[in-house]
């Protein structure tokens, strides 16, 4: 699954650690999601989208 997390985070001048704190996950999780190594659960994906004021499809895209 592709995502725009890194771009959205950079636009808001947030570090990985700050975004991790806002989403209640570890920095390692944010890094793994940004690199496309780990797909977040639906609740976490919704939480991230809500944080950026976007829909889930605007943050995460299915590669299939």
């Amino acid at each position, binding site marked *: 699954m592709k995502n725009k997390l890194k771009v959205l985070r950079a636009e808001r001048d947030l570090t990985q650690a*700050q975004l*991790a*704190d*806002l*989403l*209640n*996950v*570890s920095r*390692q*999780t944010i*890094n*793994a999601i940004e690199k496309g*190594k*780990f797909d*977040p*659960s639906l609740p*976490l994906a919704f939480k991230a989208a809500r*944080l950026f004021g976007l829909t889930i499809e605007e943050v995460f895209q299915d590669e299939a």
Partner: protein
Amino acid sequence: MNNSMGNDWKQCNSVNTKRLAKWTAAWVITLAITTFGPVFIWSQNDIITSVAIAVNFLVGIGMIIANKQHLASLDELQQKIQLSAMGLSLGVGLIVGISYSTLDTTGLINAHAEISHLVIVMSLTYMVGILLGNRKYR
């Protein structure tokens, strides 16, 4: 955007980790007392030995509950890494344990298949699983 929730999550995780460490230490200590007590402390008194085993068993249940709480407090990636490592450890423990025991019962090896050897294999496998998981999601 405030990060008070993030700090709460970290604090909760820290508390659960410390709780698990305390229960694990208590379990190891009660196991040591149960193992060496009959020989060095209470001269093979069966009642005291039974009580010591029961205490060790109950502390073990406490350790399992603490471990469950610790797992629940981890974030989803950390849970995935932990559960994958535990699954690997269980699989390796089962296969190696059965093969090792069969080697003993069929007389192909002279050494007795001790459960402590299995615990060591499972512990090492678990640690390797954690290292591999962390490397995979680095």
